[in-house]
């Protein structure tokens, strides 16, 4: 069966039509209904994040308090109701998407940047002293629970959005380094790299011309999934008061404020949580879809 299929694949590639690699990845991605759904959800979120400041005024709609309007349950005027300061939860959630996306991308930027440097150095010079030092360092960081490391860093550096990004970026960097290292290793042992080495190509050129471009696929997948996880971490940190601070409408911070009133006004905690779930879900679906599209053999 497997042989028969392989045969057909070869033929349909050779005779029927030849798609470019990118186009065929897109083709497989689009055929994956869940991944496509994730993409649409994500695009909507991006539009919301960009459009929020055009429609809403930060001072007036997001942070100004209106005590006479507090604790209004969901209604046609306030679809998710108002919070303990009389602010419209729906508007705050829309604005909150900006924070989650921005901080999430920042965190992954830091960890992917650092992880790529560490992982590719370590993978390319596999077995060297450098590799050993870097990997043992990663092991040590990995042995410290991630949340704890982030908490220690934030409480050390002080509460602020850049510090939060840095803390989460650093605490996810070791894992990212390991992933990059693994994919560099698998590419390094392929024949085209050996061919390049045998031609006397410089290390620098092999790394940037041959290895990194081929490792980009798994890195994009990991990056996407990592943004999803970071959004959860950001919300968790804000929830325990060590991340984005109120009155900023970050979803975790909103939940932190709502927690005290939760028993009497449970609706306060529904909407921000659902916003997080939908955002994370869209990114997870995209990440999984990309993984399958990049490597159709891995799909089960």
């Amino acid at each position, binding site marked *: *069966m497997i042989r028969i299929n392989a045969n057909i694949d070869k033929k349909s590639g050779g005779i029927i039509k030849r798609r470019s690699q990118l186009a065929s990845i897109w083709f497989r991605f689009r055929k994956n209904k869940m991944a496509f759904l994730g993409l649409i959800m994500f695009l909507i979120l991006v539009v919301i994040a960009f459009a929020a400041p055009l429609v809403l005024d930060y001072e007036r709609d997001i942070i100004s308090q209106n005590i006479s309007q507090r604790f209004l349950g969901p209604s046609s005027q306030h679809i998710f109701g108002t919070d303990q300061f009389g602010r419209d939860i729906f508007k705050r959630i829309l604005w909150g998407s900006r924070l989650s996306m921005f901080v999430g991308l920042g965190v992954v930027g830091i960890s992917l940047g650092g992880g790529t440097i560490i992982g590719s150095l370590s993978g390319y010079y596999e077995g060297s002293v450098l590799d050993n030092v870097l990997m043992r360092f990663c092991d040590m960081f990995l042995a410290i629970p991630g949340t704890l490391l982030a908490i220690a860093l934030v409480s050390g550096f002080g509460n602020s959005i850049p510090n939060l990004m840095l803390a989460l970026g650093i605490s996810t960097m070791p894992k990212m380094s390991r992933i990059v290292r693994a994919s560099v290793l698998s590419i390094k042992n392929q024949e085209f790299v050996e061919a390049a080495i045998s031609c006397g190509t410089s290390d620098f050129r092999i790394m940037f011309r041959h290895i990194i471009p081929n490792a980009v696929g798994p890195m994009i997948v990991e990056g996407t999934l990592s943004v999803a996880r970071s959004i959860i971490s950001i919300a968790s940190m804000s929830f325990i008061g060590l991340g984005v601070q109120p009155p900023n409408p970050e979803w975790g911070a909103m939940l932190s404020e709502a927690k005290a009133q939760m028993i009497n006004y449970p609706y306060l905690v529904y909407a921000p949580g659902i916003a997080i779930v939908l955002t994370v879900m869209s990114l997870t679906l995209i990440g999984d879809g990309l993984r399958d599209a990049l490597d159709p053999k891995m799909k089960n």
Partner: protein
Amino acid sequence: MKNEKLLEIKDLYAQYNTDEDIVYAVNDLSLSLDRGRTLGLVGETGAGKTTTCLSILRLLPERIGEISKGEIIFDGMDILSLSEDEMRKIRGKDIAMIFQDPLSSLNPVYTIGMQIGEVLKYHGIYKDDQAIENRVEEMLDLVGLPKERKNDYPHQFSGGMKQRVVIAMALACEPKLLLADEPTTALDVTIQAQVLKLMNELKERLQTAMILVTHDLGIVAEICDDVAVMYAGSIIEKGRIEDIFEGQVHHPYTVGLFASIPNLKVKTRRLSPIDGLMPDPADLPKGCTFNPRCPHRMEVCKTEEPPCVMIGEEHMVKCHLFASKEGGRP
């Protein structure tokens, strides 16, 4: 023996429904096999040989593979109408199969003794464990492996030894029919000969009928009684070994197949391969499936499916070239 005919396949169609398209792997295949005889099923990779064997065991990949039409009669039973449980009782006991790759055919986490004994256990031939143990040792002995090795795991064996284990497993219940799917392809040439010899001896001894799938015509010549040549999912020529290897009248594909193997006796400057490729089984040509590659192509080949022409007593060729001859014969 009450019934000489052990297996009869009539007008079998099997297909794979993949995400992208439907692959017609077996098309209108008919063949029959008598007890104790060996049929060589020859053809290129992708001709549908493995699919045919899997269809007989009803083991086409779930959800994807499907037998869409036809009949398979084994030992008087209509296999396609049996329940899954009845079918399970036949697998391993009456029909056994040896797969292509012995290296991956054995479960890495169980001892080979357990894996051989398992067949006996599930088919309830031997009642107590001691009898099963004895039979396992007997089988190992039969395939030339020391019986102390029954407690070893597959990774402790070499490729040729693993194939012996697989053979022991397949023959443990003395099946009536053995399906051997390229049993030697994955092995070294020297080991190949040993394994084939062993299979042949055991087959003779146990009076087992066998379908030997291969693309190696040398093996066919050595072992088989009958030969069927497959192309694009159907049998285009079949007959006794003499008919195929010596007869004068052949399907153009068979002629091509023989011309493309080296021959020590005849001096040739170069081999003559068949032009072109096997057709895409998802998009088979109309009429005769071989027509795009056939050197004797006629107009009729492009539109009409060729008839099965009987050249001799048992020699059949499916080709328009000989259709007139049949008519001309008394």
